[in-house]
């Protein structure tokens, strides 16, 4: 029998917090047992808890932590294909493979995610316009179905199951292992250029001129209104060429020493992030950067994972937690939706501490995968309760009107009707999911909320 332990579980936004029965298998047999002995309360895999809202939560259900199923099973240095269990993290891959000259093809803005979680949310990174989503760099995976059967899934052998599972929020089954592409690098360094962007128009100009760079993203000040609306810092980079790594040894050694010392040990007080402090932070962050552009050679860690430097940074929002809102808006020469969004935020008085902006490329994959060509904006809001939920509903309306969509890996509150309009392929997804899991074993709080799976208790 698996050991089920009742405990509190939360996503990265720390809202909502739920109680579930949790087990942490360490062998394939223990995992198979955990799936086989279902008790009707539903089952869901949980990786490192970096999805923000209720994507990976199942209140009063059974949750299986995959963090101990983290074996690397095969690697081919000639092609870069790594076969690994779903509990292996990006951090683990970096630690093992950067010294050997390989880097994850697609990595999100935190390295503390499992491969299984990355597949379930079909995560993207700064190189989306070049490399696509995570799943564009996955050629196969083994999926444990609710029947106990294990299927080796590729785009060719099981096209529907592939498209339902990548970005499928863990609701088709439990990924046992996957084949994921690593790309060769010359060293651990990034040739980076940051450009101070004075307005929204300027952002698009700089973004259009950044075709030479494989990794692009911007930080945007979403508190300031008027002509400077949309000002920020655009960051672009590429893996450095051979010979550029004069001092990475020292950099990484110091970093390894300092990292564990930087941790948010306790919850920040509730008042810490308010409109004034957020405005001040945005002002300082912007002013600190000189006008024009600055080129530098940086270690990959601060470039890709600036926030990972502070373990548990999510506690800065205090006990109330926070919500992240990320949407993608199709290209529009007049930028009406993005302006309406920034207007709505500034008018609400609820500033976003960190706002990240990026242009997506054309690739897409799963039926529920988030990225679409256009502009994506990610916003963090302290959990102000009802007024914030009202603001986010307003942002949903703007997004819908523009033909955009919200990222499910970060959501905790999207309405079912809005979801269905944002993801018109949801019916195809559901048909494939129901075929894979006719018993309806796999469930999540988000899945029940959005009508992706049947709610428990007949609701």
């Amino acid at each position, binding site marked *: 029998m698996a*050991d089920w*332990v009742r*405990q509190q579980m939360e996503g990265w936004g720390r809202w909502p917090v739920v109680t579930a029965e949790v*087990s*942490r298998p*360490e*062998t*394939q*047999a*223990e995992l198979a047992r955990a799936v086989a002995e279902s008790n009707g309360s539903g089952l869901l895999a949980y990786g490192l808890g970096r999805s923000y809202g209720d994507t990976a939560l199942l209140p009063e259900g059974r949750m299986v932590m995959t963090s*101990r199923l983290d*074996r*690397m*099973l*095969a*690697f081919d240095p000639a092609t870069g294909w*790594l076969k690994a*269990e779903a509990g292996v993290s990006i951090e683990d891959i970096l630690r*093992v493979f950067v010294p050997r000259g390989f880097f994850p093809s697609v990595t999100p803005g935190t390295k503390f995610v499992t491969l299984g979680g990355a597949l379930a949310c079909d995560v993207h990174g700064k190189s989306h316009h070049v490399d696509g989503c995570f799943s564009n760099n996955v050629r196969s995976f083994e999926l444990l179905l609710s029947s106990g059967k294990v299927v080796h899934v590729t785009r060719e052998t099981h096209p529907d199951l592939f498209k339902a599972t990548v970005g499928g929020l863990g609701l088709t089954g439990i990924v046992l292992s996957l084949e994921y592409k690593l790309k060769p690098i010359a060293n651990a360094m990034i040739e980076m250029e940051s450009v101070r962007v004075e307005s929204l128009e300027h952002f698009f100009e700089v973004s259009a001129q950044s075709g030479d760079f494989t990794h692009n993203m911007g930080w945007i000040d979403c508190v300031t209104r008027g002509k400077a609306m949309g000002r920020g810092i655009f960051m672009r980079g590429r893996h450095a060429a051979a010979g550029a790594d004069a001092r990475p040894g020292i950099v990484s050694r110091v970093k390894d020493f300092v990292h564990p010392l930087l941790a948010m040990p306790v919850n920040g007080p509730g008042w810490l992030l308010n409109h004034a402090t957020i405005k001040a932070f945005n002002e300082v962050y912007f002013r600190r950067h000189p006008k024009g552009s600055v080129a530098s050679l940086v270690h990959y860690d601060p470039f890709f994972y600036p926030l990972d430097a502070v373990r548990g940074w999510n506690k800065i929002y205090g006990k109330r937690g926070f919500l992240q809102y990320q949407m993608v808006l199709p290209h529009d020469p007049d930028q009406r939706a993005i302006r309406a969004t920034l207007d709505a935020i500034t008018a609400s008085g609820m500033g976003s501490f960190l706002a990240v902006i990026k242009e997506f490329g054309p690739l897409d994959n799963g039926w529920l995968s988030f990225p679409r060509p256009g502009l994506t904006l990610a916003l963090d809001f302290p959990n102000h309760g009802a007024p914030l939920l009202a603001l986010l509903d307003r942002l949903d309306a703007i997004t819908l009107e523009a033909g955009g969509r919200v990222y499910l890996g970060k959501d905790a509150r999207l309405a079912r009707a809005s979801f269905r309009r944002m993801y018109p392929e949801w019916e195809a997804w559901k048909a494939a999911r129901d075929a894979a899991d006719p018993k309806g074993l796999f469930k999540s709080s988000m899945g029940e909320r959005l009508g992706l799976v049947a709610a428990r208790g007949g609701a």
Partner: protein
Amino acid sequence: MSGNAKSAAVFGVTSRIGREVALRLAEAGHTVWVGARDFGEAERIAEDISVRTGQRAVAGTFEARSVESHSELVTAIEGAVGPLAFAVLAFGDMGDESQRDAAMLRQVVEVNFLGAASLAERIADRMVTRGAGVIAALGSVAGDRGRQSNYAYGSAKGALALYLQGLRNRVFAHGVHVCTIKLGFVDTRMTWGLDTKIPVATPEGASRAVMAAMAARTDELYWPPFWRGVMGVIKAIPERGFKRLKL
């Protein structure tokens, strides 16, 4: 590194600490044999070690309780990876203290004491003939004093510690060393869901402690180290009072 490259065996690699120790041994440049009752799991772990370290790792299977097979097993392991410089006994069975029936008692004693003692003895024999080698066995602070919550497991681990003292004494003159590791709470399946109220060590940290203890030829290591003090106090309580405690 290659000049010092040797062979090592870890018995019980599906224990997280066992797997981490095997990985540390491979990182140090050794060829490792990794054994578990579940051969499929041993294979996955051997693959993992090869991918992560580039060292050769060989998967095997063993049954701690079938002591008659141990001599042949050790011969086969050395045939596969060469003479062992390090052997780590990482397996254990907590049993179920709520069912103190004959079968449970037999299993707990046979796995934790009989199986470990028998394997240590067979490996020590071979190391003695070569005049070199280190054996480390993962024991438990539960073996320091009998308590109502886990005395079947505790007595088996306590007996093992006593056995290893004798073995250490026997092989010392032949250049062979025996380490007894007394583990407190480590974040493994044995402590999953346990409300310990005491800091829990990481398996990785425990594996580094085992490596250091083998290198330094430590006789007896408590990990985390504060457990030496905790158990010192627990052992010092007179039995007349101790028997009244709910521990």
